[in-house]
């Protein structure tokens, strides 16, 4: 049991993350303090939530490049609503961010489902469209901290048991996803739709519809993260989260979500995001030169992809050998 845990991808990854974490702790003891660990988790929360949504999309053999643009658009939208109607209740604004995010995700999903267009093409397009729409919406102007209401900025910072609400939201998302992906038919369908679409089709799974759901969930989470991002950094502008979609996809890839679909776990995905979170937070602490920071982040992704490619081969062999391939994957 223990051996299996250690040899599993999640096990190896956790060991690497912990080794890195304590390695930095040797140089800077303050880094491994409880309060700093909480702040790293909090800092990574948005990445975790987006990576979970992205995982569903990648599981179904698709990719969502529009997440960061969705974050920017929704963030700008709710920030502007808050700016002009500061008396609106926060629950309404959060609902609004979920709704707009879902809407943008549904646009991606409908194209993929009904028109069968490759998702990379659709989301490449909508990425630019959503970013452009953010510009048109705001006319390029920024929404600054003093134009946002106190509760708007305060909500994700509100501490419960010395962790901010932002962190608790990520915890809630992780638990929800863990349950859904492990125990609900709805969640298992993502694996079967991506693992073997033909088999899924014959067993009555509507692959296109499952892909639509994946984009819907990814979009909804992006919408929520749009609000969280804008309130956390207390500023909304067109370039918010520029290029962040690559970090989200990297978190999934590092976490063992196979880019060819059907393989991946919630735990792996979360550890992949935490890996990036630790790298992002550790490199400035130990004073690594900014050029090395870029190179190291890139190197880490390549190593993860190589590890992924080799582990993917094993799975392919298992599928060839084992008639109960789906069960094998489910057992992961």
């Amino acid at each position, binding site marked *: 049991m223990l051996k299996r845990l250690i040899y599993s991808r999640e096990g190896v990854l956790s060991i690497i993350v912990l080794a890195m974490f304590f390695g930095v702790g040797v140089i800077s003891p303050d880094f491994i303090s409880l309060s700093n660990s909480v702040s790293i988790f909090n800092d990574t929360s948005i990445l975790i939530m987006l990576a979970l949504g992205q995982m569903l999309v990648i599981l179904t053999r698709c990719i969502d490049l529009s997440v960061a643009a969705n974050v920017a658009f929704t963030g700008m939208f709710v920030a502007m609503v808050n700016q002009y109607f500061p008396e609106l209740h926060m629950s309404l604004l959060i609902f609004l961010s979920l709704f707009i995010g879902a809407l943008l995700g549904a646009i991606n999903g409908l194209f993929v489902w009904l028109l069968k267009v490759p998702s990379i093409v659709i989301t490449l397009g909508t990425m630019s469209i959503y970013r452009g729409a953010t*510009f048109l919406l705001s006319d390029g*102007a920024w929404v*600054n901290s*003093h134009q946002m209401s106190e509760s708007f900025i305060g909500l994700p910072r509100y501490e419960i048991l010395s962790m901010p609400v932002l962190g608790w939201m990520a915890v809630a998302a992780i638990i929800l996803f863990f349950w859904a992906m492990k125990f609900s038919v709805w969640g298992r369908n993502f694996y079967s739709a991506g693992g073997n679409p033909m088999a899924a089709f014959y067993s009555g799974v509507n692959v296109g519809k499952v892909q639509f759901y994946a984009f819907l969930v990814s979009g909804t989470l992006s919408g929520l993260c749009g609000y969280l991002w804008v309130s956390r*950094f207390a*500023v909304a502008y067109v370039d918010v989260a520029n290029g962040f979609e690559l970090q989200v996809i990297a978190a999934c890839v590092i976490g063992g979500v196979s880019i060819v679909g059907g393989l991946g776990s919630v735990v792996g995905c979360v550890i992949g995001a935490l890996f990036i979170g630790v790298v992002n937070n550790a490199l400035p*602490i130990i004073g690594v030169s900014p050029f090395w920071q870029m190179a190291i982040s890139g190197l880490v992704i390549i190593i993860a992809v190589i590890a992924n490619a080799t582990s993917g081969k094993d799975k392919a062999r298992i599928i060839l050998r084992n008639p109960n391939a789906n069960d094998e994957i489910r057992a992961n």
Partner: protein
Amino acid sequence: MKSTLVKSLVLACSTLVASHSIAAEEVRVALLVKAMGIGFFEAAYRGAEEARKELGDVEIIYTGPTSTTAEGQIEIINSLIAQRVDAIAVSANDADALVPSLKKAQQRGIKVISWDSGVGQAGREVHLNPSSNSLIGRMNVKLAADAVAQKGKTSGTFAILSATPTSTNQNIWIEEMKKSLGEFSNLKLVDTVYGDDLADKSFREATALIKNHPDLDVIVAPTTVGILAAAQAVSDLGLTGKVYVTGLGLPSELAGHVHSGAIHSFAIWNPIDLGYSATMLAYNLVKGKGTKTEIPMGRMGTLELDKNGDGAMAKPFIYDASNVDEFSSIF
């Protein structure tokens, strides 16, 4: 007598026609900015409009790419050449990449000046610095000294949070800041980090600065995204009044942090004046006013040029709680 009357009438008419045709042939000045939708450049455009109203016979074409890339600006320059504008005033995303296309523009008789962020000498006739680099560098150190004084201390430490490590003007300012340290012997520079002009990275770098240097008094961020993220990090860590943030930013973006106390004071040149001056310079070049050493720029006086065609507008203006609200409604 009669003939002179007719003559003068004809002369008057022809002058009228001539002046009318001049009015119809407005000077078309393209104000090419780093990217659309940046508060700073929107404010510069207001200044250009001000110049247009003052001059009367100018048409301003305010344009720029959607993101800060040199490629985007080159495409626009090519289309401006095709439209046969009279002058291009550019704030460049890259000092070298724009030179070939701007050279082409000059060969077609278009007057080219750069402002805010310059291009290589071959690509333009005049460069208008918003302020001189040494003045900006010194101003940033002075702001740090002011913040230390605000804490009631006689000496203190500060760190710099810059944009990208390759940003030319940021690096020049950092050099100038180091040079002016001799003048402020009570200040010690402890670290320089880079937030890449991204809110999340700047936020993390600022947090790391505070953690790595527990005795840090001031963070100086000569970049709009950086100063904002650092101020947010300081107030999130509950260190308002203990660590001050200062640097260069826009009043509209920083007013909140000035009132919360995370920022005591900061500086920026006036982008309205900058846009105004750039338009005036471009106009006067087209009209052939001005010499190799100086060019008039309306209410801003005269720009004095060095042998490279560089000139500086003025020293940066300091904003604090007393005046930030007044300016935050403007830019």
